[in-house]
């Protein structure tokens, strides 16, 4: 068992006094679930692309997900944040139907088409696979559509390269292209920025924001890091086995539960990335002037 699976209430700040005091609830706040409650009635939102109601999951004696409610609607970016071991990936696997919850249900209308970008897609060098053959694998698609999808995600140059030779950022863009080829209305991305450097990360979230705008996608993003992500989200859900708090990024960052999980300095995180870059780097690492620099997808 790796350490990320180790049982514990997951206080990354070593704030064990708080954890110990909060007997029934690991995040130790006074359960002001105001924002959660107003958005998530017991009945699923009929307009949602995907909904979770009361999803509960155990791993051995540890409850990794406790009574999770969640909706993702068209055109909104919902970000799931939480420390390692908070159950984010488990929740995503349940939403995707890879795992089944012990209690609760997933409501997914037949019209919902999911595009999935998995976490840590490390292609084994043992499997020879060009980007083109990967994008046509199991899909009825054309070379034209493949080129268009790669163009859209800014990875057109990789088409003849081996999948195992791509950089972290290129891999993510190719995976997003594969997801787009399925003509999704819901994109689910698990830690899309892992293995990508800081500016590459900003570019990646810009891309996700642009795709949302262009295709009117619902987007569910998973992240354990606070930088860049939150300002681009319409809604942030802070998960630590249960939903600690949720709402607009500004509200969540001021929330007591959020500060308790991520530390007081996290409340200032929105300020951290509001500074302006005067340039960015493209895929080849060349600096480029900023075009349309304002972060996309701010909550209105």
């Amino acid at each position, binding site marked *: *068992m790796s350490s990320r699976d180790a049982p514990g209430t997951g206080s990354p700040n070593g704030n064990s006094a708080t954890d110990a005091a909060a007997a029934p609830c690991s995040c130790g706040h006074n359960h002001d679930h105001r924002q959660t409650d107003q958005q998530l009635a017991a009945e699923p939102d009929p307009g949602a692309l995907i909904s979770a109601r009361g999803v509960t999951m155990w791993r051995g004696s540890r409850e990794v997900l406790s009574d999770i409610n969640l909706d993702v609607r068209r055109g909104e970016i919902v970000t799931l944040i939480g420390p390692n071991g908070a159950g984010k990936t488990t929740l995503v*696997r349940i939403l*995707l*139907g*890879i795992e089944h919850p012990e209690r609760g249900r997933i409501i997914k209308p037949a019209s919902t088409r*999911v595009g*999935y970008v*998995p976490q840590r*897609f490390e*292609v*084994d060098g*043992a*499997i*020879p*696979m*060009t980007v083109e*053959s*990967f994008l046509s*694998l*199991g899909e009825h698609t054309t070379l034209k559509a493949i080129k268009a999808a790669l163009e859209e995600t800014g990875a057109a140059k990789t088409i003849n390269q*081996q999948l195992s030779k791509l950089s972290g950022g290129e891999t993510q863009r190719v995976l997003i292209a594969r997801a787009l080829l*399925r003509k999704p209305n819901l994109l689910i991305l698990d830690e899309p920025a892992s293995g990508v450097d800081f500016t590459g990360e900003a570019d990646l979230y810009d891309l996700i924001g642009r795709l949302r705008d262009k295709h009117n996608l619902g987007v569910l993003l998973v992240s354990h890091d606070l930088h860049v992500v939150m300002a681009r989200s319409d809604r942030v859900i802070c998960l630590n086995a249960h939903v600690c708090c949720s709402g607009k990024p500004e509200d969540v960052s001021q929330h007591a539960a959020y500060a308790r999980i991520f530390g007081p300095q996290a409340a200032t995180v929105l300020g951290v990335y509001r500074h302006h870059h005067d340039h960015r780097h493209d895929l080849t690492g060349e600096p480029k002037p900023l075009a349309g620099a304002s972060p996309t997808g701010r909550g209105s």
Partner: protein
Amino acid sequence: MFDWPEPFVWRALFAAVGLAIIAAPLGCIVVWRRMSYVGETLSQAGLLGVALGLAANVDLTFSVILAAIAAAGVLTLLSRQQMVPLDSALGLMHHATLALGIAAIALVKGPAIDLMSYLFGDVFAVTATDLYWIYGGGAVVVAVTLYLWQPLVRLSLHEDLATAEGINPRLPRAAFDLLLAVVIAVAMKIVGILLVMAFLVVPAVAARPLSETPERMAVLAGAMAILGVILGLWLSLSSDAPGGPSIVIALCTIASISLLAGSLRRR
């Protein structure tokens, strides 16, 4: 002056070429899923199958298939336990099946039994019935492999992505274990229990540096296996070395040259 080879040489050649074609795509999947040690364990369980077949007086091909499938079932259970890593569990089972198999065969047939033909095969003793097994069973194996090819490649690449895209991983996985068991049983006669996996894994290794896509790797692996079979049989006939090991020596030589060429080209 060229003399036409005798019938037993032709039978050996047809048997080994048939096996080369059947085994190549499966061998690629074994390599991609890092299953060569799993395959090794399944084939050694085949020795227990031989003992059971001899005891019950049933067709050995059939009893070896059964034993390999049973071993695959045990391995599936072992992969779910958390006490020791799968690698260690395989290390245990691998040796246990080999030791049990050899002991069981000796108990059934007495200590005078010639184990060598089971352990290393005897390609020149292939009968017409064996050829029916290879081409009849082989046709079924190739058909099922083609049918399951795309899900198997997607599952080898990334299981969660494939599952999220709607592939149920259980059926292709179970079917693959079954195909592997059949190939092991058929290949046992030609290269023997101990060298069966070489027939699957080595051509795939040889094909990897020269392949850009999974399909190309499977086809190239087949071509290289056929070349290895021809060279190996020639080596065996001209030097009196046993057939199965000669084929495996030829395959490994081809793989070494291919890997060397691949690493030189990459510079």
